[in-house]
């Protein structure tokens, strides 16, 4: 008369903690997750196709809107890919400023991640604290390029403008509060019993699985693989910077939390090096008014806050727009790992897993 049945439940696309419009089809046996099937595509705008139909320099605004928490990283990857394609050498000052902006952006992205992740687990206040510190970094962006989120910070060949006056002081002031902020998050969370219970050993993803699924970024580093494109294939001015790649071996949510916190500290360190060693000179290379391409093909990976973001551009002879434009976004590959992370999990762990992956649907669906 009675039979047991797996309850199918749709988490998303409208749900408080799927970070946008991720849809997870869960099979539940009571509280236990029996199956999980992520469904994406609700935010698809065809960024790649649009970029193929626009002139080379017009693509940048679309990269802003992919991962809206780390627009500068996307801009940087895009600009460097095209510079590689056209063989443009970027002035040293511009490379330094790019590095600096990129690391500020990493801080921003990690702050957003920490806030939303902590709120998913129930710590309401951390969210507001990270937002407070993030505000300072957004102010820096605003001073630099007039825009806070969709920065459009780069140009092919360098930067549109030099930094404004008083920029250095602004950055240092921002760091003052971010440093104190990181301390605060650590006191609130790192040794909090409930936080430990909710994160230690949850949503594990081993190094082998990471490599098999193409998962990159802090998740890979938390599994013990010290792969960071900033060190492995240096770009911008990273070859002149001294920094460490934080790694852990536990491969769980807590390890990723620690890795990201340490990355934030390293970012501050890198930006300070940039400020100290900032060379004089122009910020823009001499490039022709219109860019006409030769036959070529280029793939350029950079380390975005969420993992490897790669721009693959194919060009034809005399073309003013890319022939083929493909973006390898970190979130797209990371989100595949959710079912793997959710073996023997409970409903609450689904939220933790989504949070720890730091998914932004803008870049997954693009």
């Amino acid at each position, binding site marked *: 008369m009675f039979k047991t049945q797996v*309850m199918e*439940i749709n988490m998303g696309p409208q749900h*408080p903690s799927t970070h946008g419009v991720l849809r997870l089809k869960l099979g539940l046996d009571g*509280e236990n997750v029996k199956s999980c099937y992520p469904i994406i595509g609700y935010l698809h705008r065809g960024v790649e196709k649009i970029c193929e139909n626009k002139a080379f320099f017009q693509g940048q605004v679309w990269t802003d809107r992919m991962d809206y928490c780390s627009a500068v990283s996307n801009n940087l990857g895009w600009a460097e890919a095209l510079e590689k394609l056209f063989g443009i050498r970027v002035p040293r000052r511009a490379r330094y400023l790019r590095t600096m902006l990129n690391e500020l952006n990493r801080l921003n992205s990690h702050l957003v991640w920490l806030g939303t992740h902590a709120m998913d*687990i*129930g*710590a309401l*206040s951390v969210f507001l604290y990270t937002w407070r510190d993030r505000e300072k970094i957004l102010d820096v962006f605003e001073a630099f390029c007039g825009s806070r989120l969709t920065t459009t910070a780069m140009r092919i060949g360098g930067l549109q403008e030099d930094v404004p006056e008083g920029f250095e002081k602004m950055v240092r002031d921002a760091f003052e509060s971010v440093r104190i902020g990181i301390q605060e998050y650590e006191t609130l969370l790192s040794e909090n019993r*409930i936080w430990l219970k*909710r994160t230690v050993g949850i949503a594990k993803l081993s190094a082998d699985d990471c490599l098999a699924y193409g998962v990159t970024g802090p998740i890979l580093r938390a599994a013990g693989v010290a792969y960071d494109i900033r060190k492995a294939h240096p770009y911008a001015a990273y070859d002149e910077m001294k920094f460490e790649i934080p790694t852990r071996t536990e491969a769980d949510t807590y390890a990723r939390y620690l890795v990201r916190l340490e990355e934030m500290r390293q970012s501050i360190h890198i930006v300070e090096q940039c400020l100290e060693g900032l060379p004089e000179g122009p910020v823009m290379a001499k490039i022709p008014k219109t860019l006409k391409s030769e036959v070529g093909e280029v793939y350029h990976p950079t380390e975005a806050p969420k993992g490897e973001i790669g721009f693959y551009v194919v060009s034809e002879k005399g073309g003013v727009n890319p022939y083929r434009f493909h973006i390898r976004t970190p979130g797209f590959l990371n989100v595949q790992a959710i079912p793997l992370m959710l073996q023997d999990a409970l409903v609450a762990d689904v939220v933790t897993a989504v949070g720890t992956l730091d998914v932004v649907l803008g870049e997954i669906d693009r």
Partner: protein
Amino acid sequence: MPEMTPVQTLLIAIIQIVLVIAFVFVVVPLTIFAERKVLGFVQQRLGSTRIAGKLRGITGLQNRFMWGMGRFPIIHYFRGLPGLVGDIVKLFIKEDIRPAKADRFVYLIAPCVSMIAAMLVYAMIGFYPGTLFTIPSFIPLIGGLPVGGTIADVNVGLLMLLGIASVGVYGIVLGAWASNSKYPLLGGLRSAAQMVSYEVPLTISMLTPVILAGSLNFNEMTRVTATGLSPWGVIPLFIGFFAYITCGFAESNRLPFDMPEAENELVAGYHTEYSGMRFGLFYLAEYINMSIVAALASAFFFGGPWLLPFGLQRFIPETAFWIGQPHWYIFAVKIVFFLFVYIWVRGSWPRYRYDQIMDVAWKYLIPMTLVNLVLAGIVRYFA
């Protein structure tokens, strides 16, 4: 005092009930406002300062009024207060949506069950020591009769209170099941397990002061815990208090135990499908439960409602100004303190996972309270 006729008793009770309901409907919105403000303080923001809505019409008028309040120095801080009126009006005039396949009858009564169970507990709580006021003699039928500070001064107050409080879970479970929706169902299952589990350590921990005082009667119990407690009795009382407040958090579904409505997992848990005033009833019931847990914590573990906690009362001469005699404002201060703790905890801690909550109840709280009960017995035997 002459014996009261049944009609007179009834009329007096009705006066008391009206007063209690008025009290609840003043205190609960104030709690909500306090929650917004305290959370705002914890999270470095302003808290509520305006209401959502258009710039025209009623909401516009109200927002302009609240904006105007912002110009005065102290009133400035409380300019979110009229917004509560807006919130309540919104709850009343909002469309009441019922899911098409919901079980109509159960769906409609479930919020009422929650609310009634929460309100009924107030019948046993003594708000004021002795007589509240005497009805003026020119009023016919009940003129000259005293109105007491407690609606029902029951001998087995504790038993009745626990019995009624445990009915509250039915509202949640029934509402969740009747919604015929999956998220509420999960929330309902969680709350059934959680609230039933936590009822056990809650009850055992409340037995500690009963054993120490040797009586189920509230007055006797408060007298003993406030003045007649042996120094050793403080230890079981404190452990009991710790267990009690933990269970109280779980019973009123507040962070870190807000499983039934875990926002980030289950959208809104058991009341996902509810809207308008039916949701409002669940919402009110939660806050009423909070204040009840706070009131009972002060009554049982903090030296009774109207006296100073920690046995301090015996060092104060009875003629001392304000704190020498039992007074309602000591009760009020205690309740406000516990409500603040509620909000404070909500601002600082993450949420437990469902199975971990069960672990806390069955592996830690129940053994702890049982051992504590034995300890209280030993103290009682030798003291």
